[in-house]
């Protein structure tokens, strides 16, 4: 097990290094850089800039150096815990991450729980009652959930919540609670506002997992050991839980690690439409403004989360399923 873990860790480091290079290059790939997008804004406001000023600004931001020098600087600073200054927000990247990450992770975790709580029972149920009315109903709903883009769903859900419950559009708090200290009323207000984003982002994930579980269950249900167990008089419920469900959960376990970054990614567009104080919209802003330090830091953070999550999945899977051996 030890050497298995060590091997995984080495692979992870290599993967993170490659990801960091790729993400840095990708962020730099579109034409122009942060400066050109800033100049665009200045020009849009009618400012005339002389070439000398532009050159001086380039030098200031270190944009006149070749890309590998810029990458080297960036990584070196990163190791010293200095994530740099966000050019777009004019705050340190660390402060922005500190401001946005906690709520992002809380929201993602709640969504994850929502997805599993809803999809696992439904998945099992639709497999056991295959071709029943419920199976068809959930299949149809599931496909709708998968195919409707979440920003459309976000708009619809947001409008529905406003019209029916009078819950203010966008954000995680009503205006009167945004400033207030934490209280029961503020918590209730937050819970009201959480529904919309959790449903919007959760629904596509839920639909996917229902399909996976259903398929895995159907594979198992027809197997001979089921007949044997029934013949031995095992109750239907215990039988289901002890054998096919356990096997069907394998694909879930193997993906649980990267579900979290995946959900955070899913929150980019929904976060903009729903105006959530989370990292998704910040990432998009950073990318469009070519704010490479901020965008780089977020992309890297998500990548590290994915890589660590995958290791976690592998280990859990190895523990949960004795058929898997370490080679």
């Amino acid at each position, binding site marked *: 097990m030890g050497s298995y873990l060590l091997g995984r860790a080495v692979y992870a480091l290599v993967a993170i290094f490659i990801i960091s290079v790729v993400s840095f290059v990708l962020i730099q790939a*579109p*034409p*122009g850089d942060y400066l*050109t*997008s800033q*100049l*665009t*804004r*200045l*020009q*849009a*406001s*009618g*400012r*005339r800039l*002389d070439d*000398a*000023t532009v*050159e*001086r600004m380039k030098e*200031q*931001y*270190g944009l006149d150096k070749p890309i590998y020098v810029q990458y080297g600087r960036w990584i070196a600073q990163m190791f010293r815990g*200095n994530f*740099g*200054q966000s050019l*777009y*927000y*004019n*705050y*340190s990247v660390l402060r*922005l991450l500190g*401001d*946005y990450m906690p709520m992002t992770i809380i929201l993602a975790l709640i969504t994850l729980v929502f997805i599993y709580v809803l999809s696992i029972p439904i998945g099992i149920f639709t497999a056991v009652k295959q071709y029943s009315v419920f199976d068809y109903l959930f299949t149809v709903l599931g496909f709708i959930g998968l195919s409707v883009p979440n920003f459309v769903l976000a*708009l619809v859900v*947001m409008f529905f919540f*406003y019209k029916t419950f009078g819950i*203010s*559009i*966008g*954000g995680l708090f009503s*205006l009167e609670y945004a400033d207030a200290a934490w209280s029961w009323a503020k918590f209730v207000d937050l819970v009201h506002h959480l529904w919309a984003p959790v449903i919007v982002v959760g629904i596509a994930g839920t639909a996917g997992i229902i399909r996976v579980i259903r398929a895995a269950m159907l594979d198992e249900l027809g197997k001979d050991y089921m007949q044997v167990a029934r013949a031995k008089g095992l109750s239907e419920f215990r039988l289901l839980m002890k054998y096919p469900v356990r096997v069907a959960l394998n694909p879930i376990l193997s993906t649980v690690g990267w579900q979290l970054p995946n959900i955070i990614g899913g929150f980019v567009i929904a*976060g*903009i*439409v*729903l*105006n*959530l*104080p989370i990292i998704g*919209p*910040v990432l998009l*802003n950073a990318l469009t403004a*070519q704010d490479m330090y901020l965008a780089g830091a977020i992309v890297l953070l998500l990548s590290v989360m994915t890589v660590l999550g995958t290791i976690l999945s592998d280990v859990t899977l190895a523990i949960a399923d004795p058929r898997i051996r370490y080679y």
Partner: protein
Amino acid sequence: MRTWRSILASALLVVVVAITAVAYQEAPMFERLVAEGKLPPVEERLPENPRVLEPLSIGRYGGTAHVYTNSQFWLWSGEIVGFDWLLTIDANYDWGIPNILESYEFNEDATAVTLHLRKGLKYSDGVEFTTEDFLFNWEYVYQNTDLFAEIPYFMVVNGEPLVMTAVDDYTLLIEFAAPNALFLNLLSGAGATQTWQWWYGLFMPAHYCKQFHPAFVGQDTVDAAAEAAGLASWVDYFWTNAGGYFGIQEQPYTEMSPVLTPYICVERTPERAVWERNAYYWKVDTEGNQLPYIDRVILHFVESTDVVDGKIISGEVDAEWLLAGLDSLPVYIDNQDIGGYEVRLYDTPAMGALSLNLTHPDPVIRAIFNDLRFRQALSLALNRDELNEATSLGLATPRSMSVPKESPYYVEGGDTAYIEYDPTEAERLLDEMGLDQKDADGFRLRPDGERLRLTIEAAEVDAGLELIREYWRAVGIDVEVKAQTQDLLNERVAANLIDIMPVGVEFNIEPAFSMLPQFYVPLTYTWPGLWANQWSLYNITSGTQGEQPPEKIQQLIDWYGEIMTAQTVEDRIEPAQNIMASHRDNLWQIGTLGGAPWPVIVKNDLMNVPETGLMTWDLNRMLPYEPCTWYFLGRAAILEPWPGRFE
């Protein structure tokens, strides 16, 4: 337009009237602080001659205004917090009206101007505003080669920088090497703290900005501070902290930095900015109440205009005029009752146009574009009424390239040149100019036998552009529409790679027009100067790059030269009309629609916002309607000062 002399006279009259009726009142927010001695009484905080505004109705103090923006750079309607200029514009579009300045006078030939400051006018931290603020800005910022590689063009006349002398603390003499009445326009837009300042300012709070400048605290100190803040150099450090005064860095407002505007920023996070009334604000209403009326403004940073629309219809927005789009107008109107707000429509002098690249790198296309008949044909092929319905709910007006009728620079017929819809005549003109050969698909061929293919490039492809493509295809021109990111578009304009692009024509009225008539005169080769790209480049670089403009274009440049050196505002009329006539006769750019009204959202209990008005993007927006005189009828809750502000 009145002359600056008569404006000066009338402004003085207002001041005199005001002096005879002094008994100043202030907001309840500060009463306790004054009683406790933490703040001087209002009489001591106001200048000797505060500026007196006549509000639509006398307001009441208190309340918090909630406004929204979707950008970290632009405040959008967050500019309700105000941006004051040395001179200002009023609701009738008279300009050059003393604002921060008490008065000013040019000498006979406009080679010098004397500025008189309001005695006792103070920054929000109580420090007096004096001529030193101008001198600091001029000597230590503009003339510091690290901060400014070269002195901005408008401070240089005839190759020589202006000369600034402080006569005393309240009198500043500025001299030029040649007549420079254009400086009046600069004063009219030279701001106190503001975003969106489209030219540079003339002063900064010296007492505050000195702490970031090596000449006052030493090079080592600023270098160390820059290093500690993780900034590249002291220049970055200076702009990060003082750039808000300049608009070079659009990050609006640093917390608690001294301002001359009605509100001071007390909190700034990535999610929102909070402003509170400036205790030293120097404007009063006609009853002597110190302005502003509203205690606090909270600007929420949201992620998209859709969110702003949502907030508007759910009644969470107190005022919005820059992010409320015409396309959402039906939605705003439908939800007026539920949201408890009113939609008002303001007029605008701005318009839309299509720029053909008259200096196209392909000589065949260039020859075609430069044939007047081609531009006339393209203009006649547009069904502007249908375009109006499709993009502006029929509320705009078809218009060719021109300043609005109300402008003194307007020439007869300038706004109606070739705007009728006449595709038959368009086809006839195209045939006549030799584009009469067509290929199998029915598209016209260039003289060299190739199909005439043109591409319209735009940052946003809307229904209007799609229609325009169809109109032009209908007369046999193979036009494509292509969406590009704004960055790429700008690079392609500068590199002269674009055939056609749409532009929004701004800077249509004074004081903006004479400063930067870039839509009418070749002044820039970057956005929005596509139409005369290489000629502009030639003009800017004094002939070292680009291409020499033909005679008719050189005339535009010469006329603008006359505007710049005109000794009075009246003297600008003739050359400006010449420019307009040239556009009317030559269709240098193809105008589409003008004057689509501007939706203004006003919460029902927000008072003193005019029912109608005129708004331009580039310059004044809500400024003539003085947001500092707006107030809330129903929720004048008196607020305590922001925690920590007066500790």
